[in-house]
């Protein structure tokens, strides 16, 4: 029993004129409170609840003391009572929450279950949202980021929207909508060998025009950025990163004006960019060099970014770009039929194609959260049912319904806070795991962090979900007839209606799970099909790496060809190497160098002018290293030298497209300014998992070396395990030229995996969501069935006494569960088909659903439900008839 005397005495000090009178008042009031508490307990209320109920009715003490003083000793100069003020609502809420915590701690199993379910779903939701936030919502890390745009040339689908030199020049010259316009060479990652004291290291480079850093509104830490006069081939200038300045000069201030050897050429450092600076497209470079824009019409190769001038908008900029295009069309009459370049928000561009995928994943995780809500609402109801008698007594004794609702909601808030905290921890772990397990799946991955926005989202979702889950129980308290329960004894009334409600909630969980499961099945199917695509080459046991031949020291094409030949000989001679070679672009790394060619001797109308094909420059035993089989003719040989007629190997797709009925061997073609003869054809190789192999032309490096200093990727096939292969390769390279660097070493299989990073990412996440949804729904089903079994123990006993076998009983339980699962499936499958339609509509590389997808989805759901029903069914079969009958 509570010591009410102490409580009253503490609060009513000096309410009376003398201690004796005060003692009387204290005794009287304390007695009143004690009596009320005793009455509540006598009526069956839990002592803890009774005390809380009395506490809630307690007066506002100072006012009571004043009232008593006024009533008990009226004096002419009695002080007025303190102004009436509302009872501090916060202290009321605090009491309510404290009481909720105590109540929850008394049912640890229930509390743990709810917090776990909420926490898991919230963890998944918060992690997904943190990705959405990082990739889509967080502004780009530049001043006034909304003014940044990327300019695309969309006239040619195959060039990926890169802009050609004349267009960039025209926009820079005449467009007034932009405060600054700049080009950057992001067509492929570039690098350079930085030599210090005879030791070369590889640094990443980005070639940019003047205005690049200005468009991004980032000033150098020291020195300057590039000016238009720097844009000349012999400039030999560089802006470097703070990190590199630290390494190379021991600080940024002393770096400016120094000269370093970059690819064998003395290069002056003119500026240092702060460590916080990020390149908006691709990885951030160590070194920026001035870019000399190509003047070739239709050579679409450069990325253009710009900053809108104050007052300019995207649409005004695009209108102006239209006028620029019109002027270009006049200038290059005939040769230059084109539509206008288009400006799009750089922020949208940076999030790339991920927007739709992420929105779909967010929607799916929202469904999982809803499943958790439905599940928890069922748990809350079930617990409420257990306490209904208690609630009815309290309601009868004057604890108002609203007070009871407030109590239900307070408990939900406490559960939400705990679930949210667990969810935040899980989200952090999930994000870490995602980023480390699936590199390359996300752009802007560095901005995927649990920041304030994510935290607020998580907590809002937590409280929202918890309160939502408490609403059915609250509605029941408000509208339900509580009194009959008092009369109906311990079993309570309305078992049938209650079972119906439980079953309905199970069906709802199943229906929602089916939708998420269906999406997962479809994405897994798509990913599986993609990863089983026959790529046309063998990536096992192949190592890829890069070796750059600095143009300053290898200025001559013939010298470069000779060195590459020597590399082939040296690598091939390493024990354990089966074949080595090199290529200008690895397979499944996307379309690249899409050049136009013309079949010699064919009239224009036969093949329509110039036709596009992917061009790959290869060297050494490239086809052997990748096991790309020869179909007809021959591969390149050492005799295909620069002074010999041009030799070309074509892919089978090329043959099918351009020589469907004739033998291609011996055909002559014009490409890259010279004539080539087809000497052989090889099997198709995919440039992309999602696309059919594109027509491809292979040209020998020895005959293309004079065209440019090709950035080739070395490939080496190993015949067995050779852990020290990189060391051996470095030794061979050092023997040839000690200043050459081996960099970017990775297994070819990694390159293949990277191409599937995005579908793997979405399939993995969606599968995780589906498993979580299924697990929650299964727990819900098992809980409902367990409850049914315990409620019907007597009935089961009677049935068994009357001759039902254990099998009959088990079947009865499973059947009652599967009925609801069936209803859930019936409701969920049409929604799932809708989800498939939506997925196929929104995401391009998702397969359409097949009957197999539908059957798989339904079977997985049924299997999970079967397992969930098995546990309570086993319990039912274990009922001892005699004991069950006696138990009542």
């Amino acid at each position, binding site marked *: 029993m509570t010591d009410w005397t102490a409580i009253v005495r503490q609060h009513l000090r000096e309410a009376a004129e003398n201690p004796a009178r005060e003692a009387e008042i204290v005794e*009287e009031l304390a*007695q*009143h409170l004690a009596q*009320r508490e005793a009455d509540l307990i006598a009526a069956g209320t839990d002592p803890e609840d009774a005390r809380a109920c009395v506490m809630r*009715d307690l*007066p*506002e003490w100072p006012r009571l003391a004043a009232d008593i003083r006024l*009533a008990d000793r009226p004096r002419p100069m009695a002080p007025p009572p303190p102004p009436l003020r509302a009872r501090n609502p916060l202290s009321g809420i605090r009491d309510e929450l404290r009481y909720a915590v105590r109540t929850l701690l008394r049912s640890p199993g229930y509390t743990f279950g709810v917090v776990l379910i909420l926490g898991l779903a919230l963890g998944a939701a918060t992690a997904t949202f943190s990705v959405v936030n990082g990739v889509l919502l967080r502004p780009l890390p530049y001043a006034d980021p909304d003014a940044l745009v990327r300019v695309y040339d969309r006239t040619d689908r195959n060039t990926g929207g890169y802009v050609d030199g004349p267009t960039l020049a025209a926009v820079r010259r005449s467009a007034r909508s932009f405060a600054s316009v700049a080009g950057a060479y992001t067509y492929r990652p570039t690098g350079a060998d930085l030599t210090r004291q005879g030791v070369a290291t590889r640094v990443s480079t980005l070639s940019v025009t003047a205005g690049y850093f200005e468009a991004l509104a980032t000033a150098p830490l020291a020195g300057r950025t590039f000016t238009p006069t720097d844009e000349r081939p012999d400039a030999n200038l560089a802006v470097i990163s703070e990190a590199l300045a630290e390494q190379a000069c021991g600080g940024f201030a002393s770096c400016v004006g120094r000269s370093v050897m970059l690819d064998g050429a003395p290069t002056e450092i003119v500026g240092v960019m702060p460590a916080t600076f990020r390149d908006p497209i691709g990885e951030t470079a160590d070194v920026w060099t001035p870019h000399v824009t190509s003047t070739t019409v239709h050579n679409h190769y450069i990325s253009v970014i710009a900053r809108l001038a104050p007052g300019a908008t995207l649409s005004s900029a695009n209108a102006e770009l239209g006028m620029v295009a019109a002027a270009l069309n006049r200038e290059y009459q005939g040769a230059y039929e084109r539509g206008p370049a288009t400006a799009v928000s750089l922020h949208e561009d940076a999030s790339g194609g991920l927007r739709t995928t992420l929105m779909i994943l967010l929607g799916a995780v929202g469904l999982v959260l809803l499943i958790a809500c439905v599940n928890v609402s069922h748990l809350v109801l079930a617990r409420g049912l257990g306490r209904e008698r208690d609630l009815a007594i309290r309601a009868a004794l*004057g604890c108002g319904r609203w007070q009871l609702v407030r109590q239900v909601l307070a408990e939900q808030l406490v559960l939400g806070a705990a679930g949210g905290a667990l969810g935040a921890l899980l989200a952090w772990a999930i994000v870490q795991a995602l980023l480390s397990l699936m590199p390359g799946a996300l752009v802007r991955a560095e901005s995927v962090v649990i920041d304030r926005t994510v935290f607020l989202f998580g907590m809002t979702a937590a409280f929202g979900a918890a309160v939502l889950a408490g609403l059915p129980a609250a509605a029941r308290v408000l509208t339900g007839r509580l009194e009959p329960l008092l009369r109906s004894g311990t079993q309570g009334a309305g078992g049938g209606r209650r079972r119906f409600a439980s079953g309905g909630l199970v069906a709802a969980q199943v229906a929602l799970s089916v939708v998420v499961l269906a999406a997962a099945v479809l994405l897994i199917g798509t990913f599986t099909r993609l990863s089983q695509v026959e790529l046309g080459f063998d990536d096992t046991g192949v190592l890829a790496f890069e070796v750059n031949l600095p143009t300053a020291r290898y200025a001559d094409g013939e010298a470069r060809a000779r060195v590459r030949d020597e590399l082939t000989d040296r690598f091939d001679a390493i024990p354990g190497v089966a074949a080595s070679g090199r290529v200008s672009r690895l397979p499944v790394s996307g379309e690249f160098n899409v050049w136009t060619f013309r079949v010699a001797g064919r009239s224009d109308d036969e093949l329509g002018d110039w036709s596009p094909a992917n061009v790959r420059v290869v060297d050494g035993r490239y086809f052997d290293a990748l096991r790309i089989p020869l179909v007809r003719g021959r591969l390149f040989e050492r005799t295909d030298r620069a002074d010999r007629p041009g030799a070309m190997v074509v892919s089978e797709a090329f043959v099918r497209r351009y020589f469907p009925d004739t033998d291609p061997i011996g055909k002559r073609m014009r490409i890259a300014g010279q004539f080539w003869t087809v000497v052989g054809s090889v099997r198709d190789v995919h440039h992309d998992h999602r696309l059919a192999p594109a027509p491809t032309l292979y040209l020998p490096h020895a005959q293309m070396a004079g065209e440019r200093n090709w950035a080739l990727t070395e490939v080496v096939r190993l015949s067995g395990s050779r852990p020290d292969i990189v060391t051996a390769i470095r030794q061979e390279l050092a023997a040839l030229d000690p200043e050459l660097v081996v960099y970017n070493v990775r297994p070819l299989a990694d390159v293949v995996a990277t191409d599937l990073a995005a579908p793997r990412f979405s399939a993995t996440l969606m599968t995780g969501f589906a498993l979580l949804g299924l697990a929650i729904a299964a727990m819900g089903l098992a809980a409902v069935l367990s409850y049914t079994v315990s409620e019907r123990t007597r009935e089961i006993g009677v049935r068994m006494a009357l001759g039902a076998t254990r099998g009959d009983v088990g079947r009865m339980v499973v059947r009652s569960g599967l009925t609801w699962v069936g209803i859930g499936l019936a409701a969920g499958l049409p929604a799932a088909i809708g989800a498939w339609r939506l997925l196929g509509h929104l995401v391009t590389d998702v397969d359409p659903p097949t009957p197999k997808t539908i059957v798989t989805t339904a079977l997985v759901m049924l299997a999970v439900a079967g397992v969930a029903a098995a546990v309570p069914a086993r319990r039912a079969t274990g009922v001892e008839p005699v004991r069950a009958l006696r138990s009542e």
Partner: protein
Amino acid sequence: MLNREAKKGSAELLILALVEERPRHGYELGKLIEQRSEGTLSFHVASLYPTLYRLEKRGLITGRWLEQAGQRRRRFYRLTPAGRRVLAEQRGTWGAFILALQRVAGVKAAEP
């Protein structure tokens, strides 16, 4: 529920009327008011006891500690002759008031 002012105004009348039948203690008064008004009126500690003390101070009721067998002592309040006069007065005033409400505002007693 009646509003605060109406409750306060009627409190004295209610208490005086209840202790007219026989002496009662505070908790019993609170319960009786709630029961007989079928929950329309309820008095908690904060409203009940200051009223009791005021009535006692004005000499309309007297409180006295009484012990019953096997129970703690309780303070029972009984009506004084002065209290009886005031009760009669108040009954008359409230009766007239209710009549006035019926005639002027069409107020009728709610169906029990």
